[in-house]
């Protein structure tokens, strides 16, 4: 049996110690990484709870319930940060990315512990697929919140809209990865393809 809580405490401990030693600006990033890991652990409990409520399998919960729960859990601290601290725009993106990094890292470590380190192909898919997907979702939400919170009238609806985009993107990825074969390959390439499209759009904007 895998004790996720034990893995969590082992991973979080050095970050918490680093928070004490770090400068003020670095401390915030470390706190968000720790929260990302916490969100991953809490999401696992909540996913299991809803899987029991709906009486579905873990696979169905992964495809249909987990994306909504995980993206909501990632969003909550950023909303608190926005409402209470009113940070500058770029700080929001940085915070969202740190949460996503913490989330993806903890999830990958749990998979490593559960499945071992033998299968490099699988681990590359986990790293560049699932890990990258969490970062892409975090980036989508970060940029979306940066835009939406510039305008008072757009804050609520913009946040909901951005959350829905991230949730559906996450769900699409989980759906593609749930079936072996060409669908899984497409799913693995999806986050990397999205990043390539984003870089092209950035070049278009700079022109």
């Amino acid at each position, binding site marked *: 049996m895998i004790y996720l809580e034990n893995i969590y405490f082992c991973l979080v401990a050095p970050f918490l110690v680093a928070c004490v030693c770090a400068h003020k600006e670095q401390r915030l990033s470390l706190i968000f990484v720790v929260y990302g890991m916490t969100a991953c652990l809490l999401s696992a409990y909540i996913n299991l709870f809803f899987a029991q409520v709906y009486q579905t399998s873990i696979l169905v919960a992964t495809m*249909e*319930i987990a994306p909504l729960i995980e993206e909501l859990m990632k969003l909550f601290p950023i909303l608190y940060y926005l409402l209470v601290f009113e940070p500058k725009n770029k700080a929001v993106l940085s915070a969202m990315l740190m949460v996503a990094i913490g989330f993806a890292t903890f999830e990958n470590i749990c998979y490593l512990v559960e499945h071992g380190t033998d299968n490099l192909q699988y681990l590359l898919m986990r790293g560049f697929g699932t890990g990258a997907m969490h970062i892409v979702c975090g980036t989508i939400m970060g940029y979306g919140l940066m835009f939406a919170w510039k305008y008072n009238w757009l804050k609520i609806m913009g946040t909901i809209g951005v959350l*829905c985009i991230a949730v559906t993107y996450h769900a699409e990825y989980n759906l593609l990865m749930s*079936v072996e074969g060409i669908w899984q390959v497409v799913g693995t390439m999806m986050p990397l393809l999205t990043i390539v499209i984003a870089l092209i759009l950035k070049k278009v*904007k700079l022109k």
Partner: protein
Amino acid sequence: MTIELTTNTLQMCVCLVSAIWMTILAVQSARPVHILMAGFSDTFALGTMYWTTHQLMTTQIPDAFYLAEVSFMAAPLFLLCIEFYSGKQIFDGNFYPVAIPIYVVACGLWIFFTIDGGDGIANAMYMSATAICFAKAVQNLRFGNPYGRSLHLYCICFVLVEWMLWFTECIWSGDTWANPYYWVDNSLTLTIALIIPAVKGAWDYDLP
């Protein structure tokens, strides 16, 4: 491949192309109205993509939760933002007495046809959002900035096609081309494709 899967796959392809193109235009323009239209097309495309790939891969409806509904619920919110804040400076009392009975009748007909637990609530919310969007778009079309006409017309077309889709879904069934539902679904695909001409027609328009 069934007719439903064929029309959904076509719709998914058109939605994805429109979404990417619209996002490029929004990045070039950087104006809130274009970014909101990109948000609308992106959410609708993602929802359609999830629904279609679910059908293609699993050949069954979702077991626990229609996750594509999340995106379909978010899409009219972007249009609502545009229409609501386009008309911020319009004050015209004559329009509202006409809009309210239309909205109430539309909501009632929809709930009568499709209420079914959580689906009913989600559909009622979606219908409320689209009804308000429709009412504001008509108002903005009549009294608003003429530069934004094509956007308001697009919004009206989208809402009307969506409502027709729901009514045909309730009344007709069958997996043949004689079912009007599939013709209306293809009309929705065409409407999604028309987002680019609509935005280009209102290129100089921005929210007040």
